[in-house]
């Protein structure tokens, strides 16, 4: 293998990838979408977006109606205008019909029906044209809850404010490791692992797919015959994968820069409330995690790109590639799904085994490092096995590559490929 030939192929592939519309579009869109998601979702869930609601409270033999009306009136935003308090003998549709009509005719935004419940005193049901706003529903729920609680403790001398304070009890999870203590638990580990895994997944998908398309294009146009007249199939494959690795790292670099910009500039500038301002990147991303992420990103990218390259080499048209592409994605999807198990069960034997299987290692070992740092030797054993896996996959791929690249008109069968691997 001549390194300078590999570099020439890699450079062409790199430029072709980073100049492609898909690359530019996804590189810009993903931070925008992620940013939009991160910044807009809290806004959406802290504000219902509704200024005032006209509602009626309909009490079916519970006696909670008036008390609930007071609780509802105390809600500041959206301001609830309790236009009517009524008592009905039963909860049938015909009995509720006047209120339903009022809602349909838009004289009311909704009405809340209370029915008796032997255990907690009352059940509530809210009838409205729009029932999709989770913030508003939560407020209504709290109001009913408070009403029931007041009735429950009435006369016992218990302070309802203190009970509400107890209700806000939250168990904090702290991860203890050799490096000390860090705030964490399932949620933090889950979200940071999924975010990092998705970065790898998206980068491989975007760039691997582009490379696979390019290989099929080179094959179907017979350009491959000209190129293989100048470079060996191994140089060609190595160059392709290095080029694609370069474009993936470029993309990652841009995304990381976008995240840092977002955290250091956009968040304070927009002063997006306590929820986001308290967001401490340091508790989620440690230097150690960033180091291992870089290692697993690079190695995982390599391995998954080899899958894409080999798959593309065996396809004769872009349609065929489209159908076959899922096969290259399968190892990543399995790895991604395994991480969910691993985050919840970081110490089991199954987790150890999963994290040492090379096609799964990049994501699963990263999840382990993130959740409950495994012994150093296990991490490096995983890295070593992954590196060996890459060498083995590359060796197999190079054997299949030359044969499959020059095959036209039909896809090679598995027995054919096996005999090619044996024959070398």
């Amino acid at each position, binding site marked *: 293998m001549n390194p300078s*030939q590999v570099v*020439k*192929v890699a450079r*062409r592939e790199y430029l*072709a990838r980073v*100049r*492609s519309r898909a690359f530019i579009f996804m590189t810009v869109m993903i931070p925008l979408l992620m940013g939009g998601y991160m910044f807009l979702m809290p806004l959406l869930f802290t504000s219902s977006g509704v200024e005032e609601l006209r509602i009626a409270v309909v009490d079916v033999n519970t006696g909670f109606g008036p008390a609930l009306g007071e609780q509802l009136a105390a809600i500041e935003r959206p301001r609830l205008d309790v236009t009517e308090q009524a008592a009905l003998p039963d909860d049938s549709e015909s009995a509720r019909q006047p209120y339903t009509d009022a809602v349909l005719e838009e004289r009311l935004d909704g009405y809340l029906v209370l029915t008796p419940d032997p255990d907690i005193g009352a059940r509530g049901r809210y009838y409205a044209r729009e029932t999709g706003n989770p913030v508003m529903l939560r407020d209504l729920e709290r109001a009913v809850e408070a009403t029931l609680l007041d009735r429950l403790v009435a006369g016992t001398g218990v302070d309802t404010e203190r009970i509400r304070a107890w209700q806000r009890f939250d168990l904090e999870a702290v991860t203890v490791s050799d490096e000390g203590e860090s705030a964490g638990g399932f949620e933090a580990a889950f979200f940071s692992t999924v975010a990092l895994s998705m970065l790898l997944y998206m980068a491989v998908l975007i760039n691997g797919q582009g490379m696979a398309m*390019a290989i099929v*294009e*080179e094959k*179907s*146009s*017979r*350009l491959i*015959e*000209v*190129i*293989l*007249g*100048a*470079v*060996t199939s191994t140089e060609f494959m190595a160059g392709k994968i290095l080029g694609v690795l370069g474009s993936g790292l470029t993309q990652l670099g841009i995304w990381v820069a976008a995240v840092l910009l977002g955290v250091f500039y956009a968040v304070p500038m927009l002063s997006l409330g306590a929820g986001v301002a308290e967001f401490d990147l340091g508790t989620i991303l440690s230097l150690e995690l960033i180091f291992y992420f870089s290692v697993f990103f690079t190695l995982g990218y390599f391995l998954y790109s080899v899958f894409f390259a080999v798959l593309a080499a065996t396809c004769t048209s872009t349609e065929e590639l489209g159908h076959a592409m899922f096969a290259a994605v399968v190892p990543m999807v399995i790895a991604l799904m395994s991480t969910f198990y691993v985050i919840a069960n970081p110490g089991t034997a199954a987790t150890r085994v999963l994290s040492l299987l090379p096609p799964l290692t990049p994501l699963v070992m990263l999840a382990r490092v993130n959740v409950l740092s495994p012994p150093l030797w296990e991490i490096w054993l995983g890295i070593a096995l992954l590196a060996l896996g890459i060498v083995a996959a590359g060796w197999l791929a190079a054997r299949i590559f030359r044969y499959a690249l*020059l095959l036209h008109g039909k896809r090679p069968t598995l027995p054919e490929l096996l005999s090619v691997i044996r024959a070398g």
Partner: protein
Amino acid sequence: MPTAALRCENLVKKFAGTTAVRGLDLNVPAGAIFGLLGPNGSGKTTTIRTSLGIYVPDGGSVELLGSRDPLAVRHRVGYLPEERGLYAKMKVAEQLTFLAAIRGLDEAEANRRAHAWLDRVGLAANARSETGELSKGMQQKVQFAAAVIHEPDLVVLDEPFTGLDPINSRLLQDLILEQRGRGATVVLSTHRMEQVEALCESICLIHEGRPILDGVLADIRTGYGRNTVVVEYEGGGGPLTDLPGVRRGEDTGQEARLELDPGADPQAVIRTVVNRVAIGAVRLEHPSLEDIYLERVGAPPSPAGEAAS
């Protein structure tokens, strides 16, 4: 430089169920323009690909530029495949530079030659265009440039004239002659008999994976003797292809090319013609390469004269 740029002995190449090349001997003299002829599916392209090491032969041997390992001399070969393609999204000059660079030229030289070639084929103004935006004929000129930009010792062109207009065909013909002029050997695989007659010194005619005629073109034609009567005539009286002693012929109503039966007397045929139509000119010729081709490969089943398309 060996005396043969390419030599194949008893070459065999099989694909699942079919044998594309069956025991082919080929000897391409160094420094010549060599025509590889044959009908569609005769095995020309497979012969080329096997000779260049793109396919591994199932039998026989190949000696390319003196080497038994075609891949070892790959940088000294320039190849224009039949189904043509370039990177559609790549800029024309960048593409040529890349294809020159992977053939071993340093970046600066590759870039210099890329622009010189674009100039030569009249595409200097398109250097920064995306290749996919060029017309088919323009792309073909780019591909020819890509095949020869590294000044290979052997240039292999598979159907290079397909899709070119007469002006660009002439340009390509000149460029091929230039390649021979600088000392390269050119292998030209084509159906276009007039190009072969204009360019090639030697030919090999392949049919069903075997050579059925090969050697120096002038010798082959001479070997057939002057067995073709060409008649230019005016008015009715045709067609002349049904005359006694005529084995096969073409008649456009103004000119007839009549290939005679072996042993037929040309003078007797000419006398019959003179009695039948008003003659403008009449002459006795060697058969054309197309006549020879049709004779050896077999005339087409329906209206004559289209086999050379």
